[in-house]
């Protein structure tokens, strides 16, 4: 080591104030940054600090992983602590990424039970957000598969939590946005798979009713997700493509001449910095969507696709959050209950199409019954839209939020950057229980993100 003066003076507790944001690059706020170096030293690092939140990979879109005062990076907690090939049970530290888990265990014939739309998230983040995947209708959220975790509560004590041990703390930590404690490690089971290929079947839905029918038909499918053309209007409102997926068997892969465990090609494309916000405009997105829809409609049928294309299509495009320019973007993800969903969704889609600024990345999915607490999913449909962060978007989203909560729905905290307290309180009836627990733990004011302050959690 060639130590410079700065290097000689700075230890692992080196402090610096930095401007942080989530994946959407909106909003931005200054925060002190601390880096955890091992689970054992975290209590000392956090002692006496207030306004702290843990940050894994920084993939929450809004302000969930930006500390009110201090943000603790957990990337160094990246050790696997134990794996049992007989059961698929994995214990890993909270900073381990999903990408690392898949890269390590897929070649050995195991895949995570639930994966979100990107593999560049950490285990701790997946639990804190209780992420869901394209199989929520059958498997529930990631939290449903967590058997136990170690939580560093605000008193500085690491506590084992499971459905038997500290069960209330465990339940509210799943989806608890890091506000009940800092997750140090967790145990869950991977499931055996014969290959890394997904047998994908693409169906065309000409309008929203057809779309919802197609998603209902997929109740027995392992995975199901729809891309929706959110600029289509009139008779085509809600049109899109529905992708059903099943893990492909080993024989099917070999028969098709495929390596059962494909490895994504290196050389990812990267979006350059400094793109102007108008890169995505109504003309370019309308053209893209129409092309994409027709191509999907023409291809139809089914085929084998590798795991990374099916689950993480955007991961192939590094730094895609730069597509929206320096002002950033927001992802609006809501869930509305099944009953009456069509009317609510069509109203929302119509308003989004009229504004005409949504990106091509619009996703519709079925969700099964939820996990309780502040966990996002409830039995219904979830719609996710990307929109540039600007005044017109915010005005539109305030309107959409009202229709979502009026229908008994809610917004996903891991994506949120701007919802109002009223919307949040109306959407999450478990909030008083959550606040009580925070009070009991002495977490109020101690564990606090920009999100928790903004929403009064």
């Amino acid at each position: 080591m060639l130590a410079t003066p700065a290097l000689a003076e700075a230890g692992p507790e080196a402090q610096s104030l930095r401007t942080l944001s989530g994946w959407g690059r909106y909003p931005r706020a200054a925060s002190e940054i601390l880096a955890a170096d091992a689970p054992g030293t975290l209590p000392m690092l956090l002692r006496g600090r207030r306004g702290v939140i843990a940050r894994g990979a920084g993939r929450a879109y809004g302000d969930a992983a930006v500390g009110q005062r201090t943000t603790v990076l957990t990337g160094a907690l990246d050790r696997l602590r134990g794996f049992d090939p007989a059961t698929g049970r994995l214990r890993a530290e909270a900073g381990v990424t999903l990408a690392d888990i898949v890269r390590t265990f897929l070649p050995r014939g195991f895949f995570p039970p639930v994966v979100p739309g990107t593999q560049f998230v950490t285990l701790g983040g997946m639990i804190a957000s209780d992420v869901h995947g394209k199989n929520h209708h059958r498997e529930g959220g990631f939290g449903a598969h967590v058997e136990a975790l170690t939580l560093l509560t605000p008193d500085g004590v690491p506590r084992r939590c499971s459905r038997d041990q500290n069960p209330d703390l465990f339940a509210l930590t799943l989806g608890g946005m890091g506000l009940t404690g800092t997750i140090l490690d967790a145990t869950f089971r991977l499931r055996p798979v014969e290959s890394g290929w997904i047998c994908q079947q693409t169906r065309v839905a000409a309008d929203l009713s057809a779309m919802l029918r197609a998603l209902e038909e997929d109740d027995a499918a392992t995975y199901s997700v729809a891309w929706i053309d959110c600029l289509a209007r009139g008779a085509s409102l809600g049109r899109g493509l529905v992708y059903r997926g099943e893990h492909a068997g080993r024989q099917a892969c070999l028969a098709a001449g495929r390596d059962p465990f494909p490895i994504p090609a290196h050389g990812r494309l990267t979006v350059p910095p400094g793109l102007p916000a108008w890169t995505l405009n109504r003309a370019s997105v309308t053209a893209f969507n129409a092309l994409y829809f027709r191509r999907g409609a023409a291809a139809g049928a089914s085929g084998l696709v590798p795991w990374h294309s099916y689950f993480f299509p955007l991961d192939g495009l590094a730094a895609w959050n730069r597509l929206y320019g320096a002002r950033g973007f927001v992802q609006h993800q809501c869930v509305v209950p099944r009953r009456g969903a069509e009317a609510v969704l069509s109203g929302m889609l119509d308003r989004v199409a009229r504004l005409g600024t949504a990106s091509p990345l619009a996703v519709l999915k079925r969700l099964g019954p939820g996990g309780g607490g502040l966990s996002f999913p409830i039995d219904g449909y979830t719609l996710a839209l990307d929109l540039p962060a600007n005044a017109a978007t915010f005005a539109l989203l305030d309107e959409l939020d009202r229709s979502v909560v009026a229908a008994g729905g809610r917004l996903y905290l891991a994506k949120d950057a701007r919802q109002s307290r009223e919307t949040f309180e109306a959407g999450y009836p478990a909030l008083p229980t959550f606040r009580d627990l925070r009070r009991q733990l002495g977490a109020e004011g101690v564990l606090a993100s920009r999100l928790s302050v903004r929403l009064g959690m």
Partner: protein
Amino acid sequence: MAGTLLLVGATSDIGHAVAARYAQAGWRILLAARDPERAQRNADDLVARHRAEVGLLRLDILETDSFAAWLDGLPALPDTVVCAVGELGDQGRAEVDPTHAEGVMRTNFLGPSLLLGLIAERFAARGSGAIVGISSVAGDRGRGSNYVYGAGKAGFTAFLSGLRNRLAKSGVRVVTVKPGFVRTRMTRGLRLPPLLTGEPSEVGQAVYAAAQGGGDVVYVRKIWRLVMAVIAAIPEPVFKRLNL
């Protein structure tokens, strides 16, 4: 061919990356650390990730008297030993606190040299083995900002050089690795020049390749050889006036 690696300094991030590279190649791993409890997470990681056979032993690099007995107590003499022990210390404190300075010198020079010296004897008697010392570019020339650490590393580098020279015909390889800047907990939170800064995994790969027959003195990022050659070539009358 896979054998047994003895890693000394098993809690260091660089050390863990070295162990991971060997485990990936199917080696048995013996981890030695002053605080085995802190090294346990690294041992677990090697087992879960690489299905490695891992042993964890206590060794304090400052307890030089214990080395001979400790080596005799090993289940078997390892095929390769890597010493990743290092302590940056605090230069300012070392200038006024001889005890602190002595600790830095002992940790970076005395302990590692004496341990590797004893292991070299055993390797030479057997007629095989590879010894890798992780030293530092800071040992290439003493600079005002970190010469206590640098002096320790310079001593270690000289010791490894002599050992290599002496054992060249005995079938024992001796390798000096100089990592340069590495993103570890030692440097976390600092702004490091990207071109000069490696990941721990790069050091792991460099150590593995060198021990298998690569270079004798390895700069992990090649550019460091040039940087240090330039620094070493600056005439002393000029050098002493620089802020380095």
